[in-house]
């Protein structure tokens, strides 16, 4: 479980996060949604420690991030997996070494043992026999799956995903969404996904946090989001004709 208490983040004069408080529960796929520039990625970067909030506190299982000593922070790093928007795979390493990287950093086991775990997670994301390929030799969807494999190879307690299905075709995007949700359930981890993709919201949004201009304006789940009267949320959700039609059908059925 991750609890966020009143965090703010400023870049110069520009206040990007304005006092956000919420809780992301364990075993659930938590979504942070909002329009581009609403502060989603900045919030995610605060959660993983890439940015330091100007004020407020982030708690990992009741332990404040700001009060952790170096050793506790290292343990937290080991328990954290992250899927970056572009995959962020290391170009100079093949797929096997990319996935093995976090294991090598945190474990003293010999290569054959590490390789067994690498093959296990690559199989879990339906990627086999690509161990020796380089990131430049595989497709965008495969890169995302390799990146998921790298994020979960250390059996993390927290999984962070930054726009996991951006740039993917709808079918691959759904596959990635389902994979993230399945992994969350299987390993009982706290997953936070930053997205602006409404298909993801419908597919995997067990808890949804909606940000607008750096403020949390609504939170709920993927059933409640279609019933809310919050105009900020409805403007976002029904910005496409498809979802407007779905809403009209739902209203007529009711």
């Amino acid at each position: 479980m991750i609890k966020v208490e009143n965090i703010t983040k400023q870049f110069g004069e520009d206040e990007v996060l304005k006092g956000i408080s919420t809780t992301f529960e364990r075993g659930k796929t938590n979504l942070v949604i909002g329009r581009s520039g609403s502060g989603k990625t900045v919030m995610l970067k605060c959660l993983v420690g890439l940015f330091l909030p100007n004020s407020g506190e982030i708690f990992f299982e009741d332990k404040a991030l700001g009060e952790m000593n170096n050793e506790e922070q290292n343990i937290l790093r080991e328990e954290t997996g992250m899927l970056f928007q572009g995959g962020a795979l290391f170009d100079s390493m093949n797929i096997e070494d990319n996935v093995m990287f976090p294991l090598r950093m945190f474990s003293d086991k010999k290569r054959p043992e590490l390789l067994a775990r690498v093959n296990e997670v690559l199989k879990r994301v339906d990627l086999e026999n690509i161990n020796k390929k380089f990131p430049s030799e595989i497709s965008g969807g495969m890169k995302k799956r390799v990146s998921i494999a790298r994020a979960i190879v250390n059996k993390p307690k927290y999984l962070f995903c930054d726009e996991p299905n951006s740039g993917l075709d709808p079918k691959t995007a759904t596959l990635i969404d389902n994979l993230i949700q399945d992994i969350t359930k299987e390993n009982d981890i706290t997953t936070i996904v930053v997205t602006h993709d409404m298909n993801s919201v419908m597919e995997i949004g067990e808890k949804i946090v909606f940000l607008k201009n750096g403020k949390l304006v609504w939170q709920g789940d993927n059933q409640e989001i279609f019933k809310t009267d919050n105009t900020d949320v409805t403007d976002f959700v029904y910005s496409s004709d498809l979802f407007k039609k779905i809403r009209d059908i739902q209203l007529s059925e009711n």
Partner: protein
Amino acid sequence: MKYLRDIGSYFLMLKKVFSSPTKGSVMKELIFKEIDDLIIRSLGIVSFISFFIGGVIAIQTALNLENPLIPKTLIGFATRQSIILEFAPTFMSIILAGRAGSFITSSIGSMRVTEQIDALEVMGVNSLNYLVFPKIIAMLFYPFIIVISMFIGILGGYLAGVYGGFTSSTDFILGLQDNFNSFHLVYAFIKTFIFAFILATVPSWHGYFMKGGSLEVGKASTKAFVWTSILIILTNYIVTQLLLS
């Protein structure tokens, strides 16, 4: 003000490079890879340039010897002095600021653009130590390149001088041995170590702290080359003033 902030940021970077070391087994691999990228792969261009510049120095010296009282041994002497004191340590470093420096900036800059540096940080890796420290260690082998450059430069001078008909083999070798001061080699290698550190760290700073997309990677590489060259020239002047005057 911006320059002061950049200088401060460079020294803060150096402090972080030497803290929170990466795991030994991983670092060992990185160092070997950097030695290959920065040292071994530079040998071809270094040898090519050194050979022909050595030849040109010998020919130009010979063509300027109009006074019959000046001995032909001066061709070997001038070639040796030019190559050992300036060409190999200083100008080869400027050439490598273009080759190795641009490579360092663009490789680190690309990692910044594609969030690979963020990925390292999220995994708890001190990205500066991981990326820059192996380059500094690899550049400790930089004097090896300079020795090769000195040898091939003088060889080029010998071949151009003797087989071009400007001097005899005996005169050239006598000139090489004439009035040899071993401190000049010490001076050349002190400079080389300082330049190696500049070559490893200044382009790294430009790559690590760049902002923007792939276009900015190219701009950062150009800036890195310019600033590395400026620092090498300035340091060369200061070290020469301190050690030789």
